[in-house]
């Protein structure tokens, strides 16, 4: 596919498909498609994601995960928008190259890309007697093929050397390589009033490239 960004602050993605070329996307984010483009349904089962795995994800409260994608087949043009201010990035994945993208940010991907949703990290916030479970859901995408995704706000890219680490907010991590270790830690406050305060953060360790986004 050939993907171009249209617009700046709230961009859309214009995808040009050759005859027989297929891409997958959530159907809700489509803005328009040309007459000759054919649309079909592709279930998660067809993508190799079992129903049990999906139900496990949904039981953890991931509302973004759909049971199917829309499959668009060329020739023709399709545009997508996630209706948010953010940068659109197009990434060409080499065969067996893997990236882990925060859930809810994927726009579309070639049918040759293997898609698998998963939980990358989880943490618990205790409020009195109540335990709140929080999860970082990601889409695990394996090449070959092209993926298109959008951040919230601007994208800040970092390449971490082995054992080099960066700390991000739990909302800040957008994309990580499979070689990056991602761990939830609690940033405990010091000082006289610090005892009761701690905030969950993600400590991401190299090697590997990561992306952080500046919006929430």
């Amino acid at each position, binding site marked *: 596919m050939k993907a171009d960004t249209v617009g700046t602050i709230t961009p859309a993605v214009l995808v040009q498909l050759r005859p027989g070329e297929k891409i997958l996307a959530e159907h809700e984010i489509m803005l328009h498609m040309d007459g000759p483009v054919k649309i079909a349904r592709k279930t998660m089962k067809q993508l190799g994601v079992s129903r049990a795995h999906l139900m496990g994800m949904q039981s953890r409260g991931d509302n973004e995960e759909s049971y199917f994608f829309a499959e668009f087949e060329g020739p023709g043009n399709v545009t997508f928008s996630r209706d948010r201010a953010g940068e659109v990035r197009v990434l060409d994945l080499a065969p067996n190259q893997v990236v882990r993208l925060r859930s809810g940010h994927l726009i579309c991907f070639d049918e040759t890309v293997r898609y698998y949703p998963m939980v990358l990290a989880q943490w618990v916030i205790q409020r009195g007697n109540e335990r709140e479970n929080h999860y970082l859901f990601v889409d695990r995408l394996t090449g070959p093929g092209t993926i298109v995704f959008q951040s*919230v706000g601007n994208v800040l890219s970092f390449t971490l050397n082995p054992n080099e680490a960066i700390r991000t907010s*739990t909302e800040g991590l957008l994309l990580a390589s499979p070689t990056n270790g991602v761990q939830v830690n609690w940033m405990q*406050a010091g000082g006289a009033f610090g005892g009761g305060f701690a*905030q969950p953060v993600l400590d991401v360790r190299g090697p590997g490239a990561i992306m952080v986004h*500046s919006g929430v």
Partner: protein
Amino acid sequence: MEIKVQGEFVPVALVQLAAGEEIYCEAGLMVYSDPSIRFAVRAMTQGGIGQIIRRTMVGGMPFFMHVYQGPGYAAFSRFSPGEVRSLELQPGQTIDIAEHSLLIATRTVQYSTFYVQGTGRIGRMIGFWMDRLTGPGTIVYHGHGNILGFDLKAGEAMDVDHGAVLRKDATVTLRAFNQPLGGGLTGHALSFEALHVEGPGRIELQTIDPSSLRAATEGGASASSAPAQPPQSLAGALTKGAVGGLLGRLGGG
């Protein structure tokens, strides 16, 4: 301390702190940081218990500020489209900044609050709070949308929407007034609140009213996507937002 702005339309302020340098900010603004940076919490107790209650429970201002101590780096964002500016305050120089617009301030900057009286009409604006900051030191702030600056001479005046005020010198006065929309009873019934601004001093306006952004976010955000943060204010901790929410609605006009 070194400050660098990253990103374009949702910028972050990247702050490089040397050993012993310290900055403070509201909770929940950190985007990424050096894992080795030290983190603490400081209570804002200026003005005694009466002022604290008024400021936090009525005004919704934060009671606790987060403190980051060098060496190391940390990046902060207001997570919305806008511009980030930094300002070097001279000793004794005082400025007022719209609430929830300050990104960070160095340890030497004194933090207080400033109340802009509303017209007090039923169902209309009851006033609002601004952060009052006194130098010496450096501050970094976020303007929602674009920032428009005006240098007013003594007695020079302009009228602005209260959501547009981003920062002003302490010498610039703000007075809420009721602007009728045409003549007669209908004009008064359709009137709206505005602020009369008078110099001398500098005022900066922002082109997006942050309350409209908050309304959009609160309307669209799901519980699962909300960032998990400790309570930001005494009001939040004590009343779980009930009083603040009620007064916020009254104050929103």
